[in-house]
């Protein structure tokens, strides 16, 4: 499938509308089979309504602008997206971090580094807590996209930022098919630059983790096996080292949903997710210990609910009204896309969450 050149929103595509995506996900006729509601799966294991286990990770989307237009992007990010988090909203995030006990801040986008206040934001977070884990979801190519980004590896190192980067394959064709022409070569160069300053090297304390998500209508299997193979191939072919590989399932929303429908894989993919449903993974879904913050300061249960504009089901819908107790006691919103996080060994921003069932 050719890479899109514009976001769905810029194309005025109907799947650019969140209401339409939800309608598709709940349309049995489109599926071609009777798919149970995700909610009923949780009810069967006494997990509904789904409740948080705590507030540990604050995932912040600092903007939808990106230098890439990946075919599977659930954010529908791209160069044409102008939504960007302001400094004022970043201040609200900093307040939440000062006053509460998140152990991790997970910065995502788009390409988060394209936010003009990105570096200031990282510095402020580090100033609040020298031990808090700061993760940046770096798409790698941004490091080479413009000379002003070439020093990002040093910046990340200075502020002890953990780098988490997508690389769907160790081959050029597969990577470029998902993420755009030339992405593989630039990603390899960027990984080498990160390695050169110490990232991914034993004993450096500088974590470099890769994210694998299938480049097509299939599920990931066996994170450990995939990691072994990625390590072997990247080391042999390019001398690249990294710490961990996170295997992530593609969630059927936004551009990935569009791909599934256009390629006539939608029904079969949803059936695959349903057949691979794992109650063990349902117990450990990331929305139970994570809060997701949108570029405009609204609060969501997870990154996917954010992209479907499903704001948290409690009064604290915006950072301005942050209320820890209310958020810890809210009911997490679930819908049919949640089958993506509970298939097989389960999926989260940190990869597998459980043992796969046989």
């Amino acid at each position, binding site marked *: 499938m050719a890479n899109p050149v514009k976001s769905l929103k810029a194309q005025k595509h109907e799947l650019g509308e969140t209401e339409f995506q939800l309608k598709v996900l709940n349309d049995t006729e489109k599926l071609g089979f009777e798919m149970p509601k995700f909610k009923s799966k949780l009810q069967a294991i006494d997990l509904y309504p789904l409740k948080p286990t705590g507030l540990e990770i604050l995932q912040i989307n600092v903007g939808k602008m990106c230098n890439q237009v990946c075919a599977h992007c659930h954010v529908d990010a791209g160069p044409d997206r102008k939504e960007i988090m302001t400094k004022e909203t970043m201040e609200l995030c900093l307040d939440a971090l000062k006053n509460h006990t998140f152990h991790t801040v997970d910065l995502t986008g788009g390409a988060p580094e394209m936010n003009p206040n990105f570096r200031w934001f990282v510095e402020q977070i580090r100033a609040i807590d020298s031990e808090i884990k700061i993760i940046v979801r770096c798409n790698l190519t941004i490091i080479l996209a413009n000379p002003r980004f070439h020093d990002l590896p040093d910046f990340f190192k200075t502020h002890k930022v953990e780098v988490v980067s997508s690389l769907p*394959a*160790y*081959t050029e*064709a*597969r990577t470029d098919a998902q993420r755009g022409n030339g992405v593989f070569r630039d990603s390899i160069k960027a990984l080498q630059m990160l390695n050169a300053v110490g990232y991914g090297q034993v004993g450096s304390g500088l974590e470099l983790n890769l994210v*694998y998500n*299938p480049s*097509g209508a*299939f*599920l*990931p*299997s*066996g994170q450990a*096996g*995939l990691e*072994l*193979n*990625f390590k072997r191939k990247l080391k042999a072919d390019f001398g690249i080292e990294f710490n961990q590989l996170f295997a992530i399932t593609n969630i059927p929303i936004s551009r990935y949903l569009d791909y599934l429908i256009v390629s006539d894989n939608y029904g079969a993919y949803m059936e695959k997710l349903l057949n691979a449903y794992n109650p063990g993974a349902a117990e450990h879904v990331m929305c139970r210990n994570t809060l997701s913050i949108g570029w405009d300061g609204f609060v969501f249960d997870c990154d996917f609910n954010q992209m479907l504009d499903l704001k948290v089901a409690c009064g604290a819908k915006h950072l301005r009204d942050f209320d820890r107790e209310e958020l810890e006691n809210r009911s997490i919103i679930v819908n049919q896309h949640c089958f993506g996080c509970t298939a097989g060994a389960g999926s989260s921003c940190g990869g597998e969450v459980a043992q796969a069932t*046989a």
Partner: protein
Amino acid sequence: MKTYYNPEDLKKFGNIGEFGQELADKFFSYYNEVFKAGALTEREKSLIALAVAHAVQCPYCIDAYTSDTLEKGCAEDELMEAVHVASAIRGGASLVHGVQMMNKTKELLM
């Protein structure tokens, strides 16, 4: 029945015990054990299965193990090399019988 092969039938493989549960259970128990990681990784076993699927020309198995090898992170060239291994063995199996043909020919000719 309009065709011999229907992709939907692959999903019914698990129901094969309908006409004989005991042997089906034994087969699936054995099958699941075979594909667990052992001296070979699950990935290697999946590639072998893909090659064998081509050798026995089972469309259900080709369907299942194309997906399975992709899920296990195999690249297109690895899938195709597995098919060529099957092809080489199938071709070689025919060709090596040519030795029998040559032996017999030499017996019969003056």
